[in-house]
């Protein structure tokens, strides 16, 4: 069973989906560590601004969840035999592209 699952599909979908949702900040839930709260929408005050009492929100767990679920589903659907040729030579390429995309995106911290 395990040998039919493609690590290449897992690597490709996980790194691509994670990078996409991280760059465009798409998350199904947020975590507020100060109040130990998970929510599906940002906590706002009456003026529509972030609720100061709730502290900072974390999106990282949501991005991981989206990437991981997408990768698991894709790995279960797409058999290894379909991707074997690509996988042998280029299994690392999508992750490398994701790395470059992340570095370009996070350049913003240098420009602040």
């Amino acid at each position, binding site marked *: 069973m395990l040998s039919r699952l493609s690590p290449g599909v897992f*690597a490709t979908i996980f790194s691509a989906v*994670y990078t996409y949702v991280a760059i465009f900040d798409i998350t199904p839930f947020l975590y507020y560590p100060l109040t130990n709260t998970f929510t599906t929408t940002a906590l706002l005050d009456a003026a529509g601004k972030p609720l100061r009492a709730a502290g900072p929100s974390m999106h990282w767990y949501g991005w991981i969840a989206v990437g991981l679920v997408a990768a698991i589903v894709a790995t279960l659907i797409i058999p290894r035999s379909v991707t074997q040729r690509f996988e042998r*030579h280029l*299994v690392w390429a999508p992750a490398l592209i994701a790395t470059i995309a*992340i570095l370009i995106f996070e350049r913003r911290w*240098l420009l602040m």
Partner: protein
Amino acid sequence: MILTLLMAHMLISVVLIGAVSHQAFSLWRPTAASGRNIVTNFRAVRGSVYTNAIAILYVLTTIGGAIVYPAYVLDAKKPLTDMSLNLAIGAFEVKEHFAIIGLAIIPAYVAYWRKAADDQDLFTRKVLTVMVAGFVWWNFMVGHILTDLRGIF
């Protein structure tokens, strides 16, 4: 509790960085152990025996990092933001992304080391190993520099 977890996270990452460095050097610059030269002996290891340990340690380190991350957001990121240390914050943002991209390639890394006898996959194995090593080194260095910064300021 968080301090204990942070220490465990650090100690596991020390073992991980040692293992992955040995493996990467032995793969790219293989040699036989000889004499008293420490560099030669450092890369004269059988890289394949490290694979499972590296994969498990990588997953454990990532889980540990995910557990202590909220403490970083509350206790370290805010002072860094207040001091406008944007380069440090950006380096940590890259660290969190690298940890996950590395996690994504871990199954492929294990799969291609299991076929270590197959020379046709040598280049793929080399690239995957260098990527894992690169992520581990970046994350290790950034984690330690930020911990030091928090102590200094």
